[in-house]
């Protein structure tokens, strides 16, 4: 294989193997921009797999990045558990009032069945069609929320912190139910054609809990869960920090980590070298105002800091680009990767 003829999938696999591909792979993790392409409201767009497929295809054609993103919005999983989802015109859907309003409910909580959950079936259908369209050339990314992070939406953050600190038995019971669901959900997406699962786990970030608590909680959960996921995973901190737990993350069995703009990309890369692929770390919220020059500079700086030796995918810091980011900025990112991202550097 000559480097200049790499497909997106080859490019991504090469970098995940800590070798240099033809150029730095780019993941534009776009969700709501697909609705804009189709001239549709966000709620309507995510009601049917066909819309999301069409949106993803148009976005890939427009920006020429290196993945399809099968993600709808985090609270699809909450819908599966029977919880409420609130849609907005100018932003991602959110979970509504937590469906666990009394922690005793945890005692009898049963994980949802994927086959019985319409919204999850739409996600699987999206992945299936995108996988066919990709014809082995573009990886399709799936998303599963970590069993340890999803309770913020199940119970609310305050109640969840109280649970972690004060109710070890109920905490374990909740993790068991969530781990069961997470493994099934991740594996269903892999079976539908996802090349890898993005394991969103920001509650494990040192931004949210201290490392000693992580080692007793989120770390154990991740080790058990990732071991049962039958495909590669990338752990994402959703813009929370990760440097103090890099070695621990590597021990969870994950292959990559989505990193924050709050930490130095060069230092992160050093810490991850040959252990974890670094995904990041353009600040998605600042991106809304990036000029063309700033975009070019930020992309170049990221590549200078982290691209050498492979093990690097350029992306935003959160794992989803806000819908307010203009098309011009996305095009400028795509251009800048082609200008500055060619190997050898």
């Amino acid at each position: 294989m000559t480097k200049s003829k790499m497909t997106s999938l080859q490019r991504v696999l090469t970098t995940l193997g800590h070798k240099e591909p033809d150029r730095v792979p780019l993941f534009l993790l776009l969700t709501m921009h697909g609705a804009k392409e189709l001239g549709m409201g966000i709620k309507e767009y995510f009601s049917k797999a066909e819309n999301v497929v069409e949106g993803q295809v148009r976005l890939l054609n427009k920006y020429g990045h290196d993945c399809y993103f099968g993600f709808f919005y985090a609270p699809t999983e909450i819908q599966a558990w029977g919880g409420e989802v609130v849609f907005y015109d100018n932003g991602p859907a959110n979970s509504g009032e937590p469906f666990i309003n009394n922690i005793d409910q945890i005692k009898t909580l049963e994980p949802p069945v994927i086959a019985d959950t319409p919204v999850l079936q739409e996600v699987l259908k999206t992945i299936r069609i995108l996988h066919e369209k990709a014809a082995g050339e573009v990886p399709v990314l799936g998303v599963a929320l970590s069993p340890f992070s999803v309770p913020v939406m199940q119970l609310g953050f305050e109640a969840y912190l109280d649970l972690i600190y004060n109710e070890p038995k109920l905490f374990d019971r909740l993790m068991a139910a969530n781990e069961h669901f997470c493994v099934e959900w991740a594996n269903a997406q892999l079976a539908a054609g996802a090349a890898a699962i993005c394991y969103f786990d920001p509650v494990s970030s040192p931004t949210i809990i201290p490392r000693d608590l992580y080692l007793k909680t989120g770390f154990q959960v991740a080790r058990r869960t990732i071991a049962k996921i039958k495909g590669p995973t990338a752990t994402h901190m959703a813009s929370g920090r990760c440097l103090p737990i890099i070695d621990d993350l590597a021990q969870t069995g994950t292959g990559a980590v989505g990193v924050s703009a709050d930490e130095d990309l060069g230092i992160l890369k050093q810490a991850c070298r040959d252990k974890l692929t670094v995904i990041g770390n353009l600040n998605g919220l600042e991106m809304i105002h990036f000029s063309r020059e700033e975009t070019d500079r930020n992309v170049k700086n990221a590549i200078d800091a982290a691209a050498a030796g492979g093990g690097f995918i350029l992306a935003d810091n959160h794992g989803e680009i806000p819908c307010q980011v203009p098309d011009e900025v996305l095009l400028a990112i795509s251009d800048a990767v082609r200008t500055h991202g060619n190997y050898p550097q």
Partner: protein
Amino acid sequence: MADSNMADRESTFKNALLSSDTDAAGKALDEYLADKTVLEFVEEVVVKVLDEIGDGWQKGEYALSQVYMSGRICEDLLEKVLPDKTVLRKDKPKIALALLNDYHALGKRIVYAVLRAGGYQLIDYGRVESEELVRKVKEDKIEILLISVLMLSSALNIKEIVKSLSHAENKVNIVVGGAPFRLDRKLWQEVRADAVGYTATDALHIVRTLEGDNSND
């Protein structure tokens, strides 16, 4: 009290908070109150230590769960030593706190705890939509309005609120905070807020500054 002794007490208190040890924090307070007043404790210890923990969080030294637990413990301790509904600070501006549009109440909860621990009385509007918030603020003649959000979409809605409240009878100072403001340091100006805070103790300092400004009127 010797300075070193004072520093010891402070660090004992801070460590108690960081390790969520309510009993140790309570003991530190009792020792302090043997020769100081509650207000002195608030000023010399609570605010200082919470500040350090908030700054440490910004720098990545501490975690949010520690910020949350520290605020809660201080709030609880002060509720206990203060007689019912006593306000440490008299003749204060009318302050309200709200969570706008989204369902993420933790930021607001922490800000509430810290302001209470700092001796302030404030109205908690809970989770509100824009119109309701504007109506309440006007009705209650609020002077300082603190808004917490987690979603960018909610943050962007603040612009309209600022506009609507510019017609209020009295000047409403609008202070904003929450993750999107921390991650985009220009956002607060874009939504035309009067001030922004990046940690919960920032709320305390901003309220104090605004209070100073008001009393000069």
